[in-house]
């Protein structure tokens, strides 16, 4: 059995507060039990470990920052001179210097619009049901797990689904509609998850107040909960739409064209989108096409930036309205 006196007392007191001052605590030793156990705090070594730790985490952070700068710098450097009104307003061409992205740009905008029409009602609807109406049953838990899984399914697998269901079974062909449906499925989980998060932040009091006035559950949601959650939902929706703008693999699967000399006019028309065009140009060995790809990327990033700026703007507007 260890006795009380086993507690180390002597050496600990030689640990001094100020570096370089020796044994300030000597006077304390006398009235405390002395033991032979030793403390070796090694402050220098620990200080060094702390510095290394700091530098490593700093380095990790810099990896992200530097990659971004490097990426943007090299793309702007290669493609900036190629971006022009002519580039935006011409169709692709076999001659690299004449190739443009008109069809792809229009296709991307069309597709995003269609995806918004399909995915937003479905996604927000599902989120509202799961957050506001669903009881905590097995079915709901199943849907929860299911959504978490769907969010992790590789995008190309959605492409295979789209290829079979929309292109073949529904016979939409390689059309804009088939692309939009496929893309909607892809971003649906993201919309649901973010919309649910937004609904969760609405205080319970908002619902109770409405219900207390005799509103039905749906009336309460429609008139009070949804407007309160709107900024959050909107942000999530736009983030997922910007994912749809940049996604390539599923559209590659369903057979979006890589060479298109006309602008799609109806949802049943063939189409191409910016990322596909970029992919196609990047994959060619000629340098001129790679320059065109870089220019295409600049336009794509510009579109994404605009979409995100819209998100921020819309969110700010909504929030201001809420305050009034």
């Amino acid at each position, binding site marked *: 059995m260890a006795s009380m006196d086993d507690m180390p007392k002597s050496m600990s007191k030689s640990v001094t507060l100020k570096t370089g001052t020796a044994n300030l605590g000597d006077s304390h030793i006398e009235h405390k039990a002395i033991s032979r156990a030793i403390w070796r705090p090694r402050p220098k070594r620990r200080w060094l470990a*702390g510095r290394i730790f700091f530098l490593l985490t700093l380095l990790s952070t810099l990896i992200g920052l530097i990659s971004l700068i490097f990426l943007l710098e090299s793309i702007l450097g290669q493609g900036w001179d190629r971006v022009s009104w002519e580039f935006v307003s011409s169709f692709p061409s076999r001659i690299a210097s004449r190739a443009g992205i008109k069809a792809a740009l229009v296709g991307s905008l069309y597709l995003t619009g269609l995806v918004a029409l399909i995915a937003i009602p479905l996604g927000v609807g599902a989120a509202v049901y799961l957050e506001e109406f669903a009881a905590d049953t097995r079915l709901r838990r199943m849907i929860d797990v299911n959504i978490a899984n*769907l969010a992790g399914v590789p995008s190309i697998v959605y492409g295979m689904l789209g290829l079979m269901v929309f292109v073949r079974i529904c016979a939409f062909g390689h059309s804009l509609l088939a692309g939009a449906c496929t893309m909607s499925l892809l971003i649906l989980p993201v919309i649901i998850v973010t919309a649910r998060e937004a609904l969760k932040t609405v205080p319970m009091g908002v619902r109770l107040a409405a219900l207390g006035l005799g509103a039905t559950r749906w009336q309460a949601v429609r008139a009070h909960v949804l407007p309160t959650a709107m900024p959050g939902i909107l942000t999530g929706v736009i983030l997922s739409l910007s994912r749809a703008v940049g996604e390539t693999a599923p559209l590659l699967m369903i057979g979006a064209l890589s060479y298109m000399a006309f602008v799609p006019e109806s949802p049943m028309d063939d189409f191409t989108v910016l990322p596909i065009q970029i992919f196609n140009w990047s994959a060619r060995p000629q340098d001129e096409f790679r320059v065109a790809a870089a220019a295409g990327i600049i336009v794509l990033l510009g579109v994404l930036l605009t979409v995100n700026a819209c998100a921020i703007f819309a969110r700010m507007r909504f929030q201001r309205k809420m305050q009034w």
Partner: protein
Amino acid sequence: MKKLLFACALFCILITLGIVLVLLSEAVLFFEEVPLLDFITGTIWAPMFEPKSFGVLPLVCGTFLITCGAAIIGLPSGLGVGLFLNDFAPNWLRSIIKPVLEILAGIPTVVYGYFALTVVTPLLQRMSPSVEVFNAASAAMVVGVMVLPMVASLCDDAIRAVPRSIKEAGYALGATKCEVALQVTVPSALSGIVASFILAISRAFGETMAVTLAAGSTPKLTLNPFESVQTLTAYIAQVSTGDTPQGSLEYKSIFAVGMLLLVVTLFFNMLAYYLVKRFRTVTE
């Protein structure tokens, strides 16, 4: 109205069912012609040449190579960013780093592919001439950077959720910041951190565009990162961009490969899902 909303929610289950049914129906046809065992254990993937051979291991190997490379780059640095944000970054720096991460996360994958092919690969080639034009290393590097923001923001959340009181207990015992971070905070947030790692691995595993562009299309059993390889996803993309007739064995093979892809990512995602759930119950 409630029924309509319910239908929306149910739709998600339909998507899952759809995915499974579509993949299964074609994969079954494929496995009628190619035995499952040959598919899983075969070491030669040659769908275009006679005699056709459908041993998936070369594709798995390529995928593995790139996933590992991406994990080596993306996971530690993602965790590092999470720790930096929590322990060192003052508020103003945090408000710069967070948006940068969001921008990185929002860059389309095809852009990363372009970057790997036209910037990273030439850089690697300058360092060593034996590097092939298409190589696993450059693809792995950009996929690593691609998953970094996701790991960083999930780790940041997990680390932030560690109760302040536990960290304070560490400091009050005379621990340095580094000791508290590595020996108190990280173990407490471990399941959240591991979940973020698994999600990142799953994402790297299913990534298509960057690897299709940068890693090439040569199915090969190799662990040399400077050679051209082909991943599961790149094979699917390759077949779908070619003119493979519907109903051919080659066409059916992409569904078998897709099935494999789905099973593996599903496994990773379920694992991460339950880890996160457990983590929530621990911290609350």
